[in-house]
């Protein structure tokens, strides 16, 4: 038992070294750093292929002005009227990616959190890191 624990500690420590090194390298130099809070980057989404349901969590006026092609509008102001079109478009096999303006906007997280709470069946749910700004390159 003692021998097993000692060897286990060595193996755990040995794995920690390259994990820390690769983590430090990715955090410092790689833009594809893993994100927390369910956020995904554009590059990650591109790797998934074209099968993504975009959800625009901004205001209707901003959506009407410009949005990601194929995106559907779903914001908290018009939740009751917009949730049905979202559910009609939703496919369990297709990841849902919510976005807002980018930067410090919270609308995408708010919409994603509400979807998780009210529709737990929507499991493939993400928030676009950088939002519309990241998409439009602004």
């Amino acid at each position, binding site marked *: 038992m003692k*021998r*097993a*624990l*000692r*060897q*286990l*500690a*060595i*193996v*755990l420590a*040995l*794995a*920690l070294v*390259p*994990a*820390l090194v*690769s*983590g430090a390298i*990715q955090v410092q130099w*790689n833009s*594809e*750093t*893993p*994100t*927390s*809070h*369910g956020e*995904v*980057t554009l*590059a*990650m989404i591109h*790797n*998934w*292929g074209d099968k993504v349901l975009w959800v625009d969590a901004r205001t209707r006026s901003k959506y009407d002005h410009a949005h990601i092609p194929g995106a559907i509008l779903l914001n908290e102001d018009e939740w009751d009227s917009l949730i049905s079109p979202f559910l009609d478009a939703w496919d*369990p*096999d297709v990841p849902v990616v919510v976005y807002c303006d980018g930067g410090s906007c919270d609308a995408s997280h708010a919409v994603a959190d509400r979807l998780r709470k009210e529709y737990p*069946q929507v*499991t*493939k749910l*993400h928030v676009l890191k950088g939002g519309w700004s990241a998409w439009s390159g602004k």
Partner: protein
Amino acid sequence: MVGKIIVLLLRLVVAGVFLYAGVMKIWDFKHGQSATPDFTVAIQHFEILPYPDLAVMLAFYLPWLEAISALALFVRRLALGAATAITGMTAIFLIALASAWHRGLDISCGCFGKDEVSTNYPTLLLRDGLLLAAALVLVWRECKTAAPARDA
């Protein structure tokens, strides 16, 4: 003699599976980039961890632990520890899979890097059950063959 051959085969299979699983979660060979972001998302899909940042840390650590444990299975002084680590990881993953199945989650397991196919729970549970049995045999074998001189 037959027993030794069986144990050697089990060791090769378990090490091969874990080395492959670890490497595929470290590097996405198809796209020539780190596979850590995709593995992070795969972990988050299980909706088990209380803090999202834990998924990021696990995504950095687990693949290396899998790969190092696989290699350490062939190092005499580390084989028992490696088999124990593999047993623990497999048991935890079995619990996570069963939990996801119980909650009706339709997710990709992320077992071997990016995986677009939804999880087939019965198949995965069977596969990991067999892996767990093999890992337990290796633990038992290492304990059984332990000589006092090894600890000296």
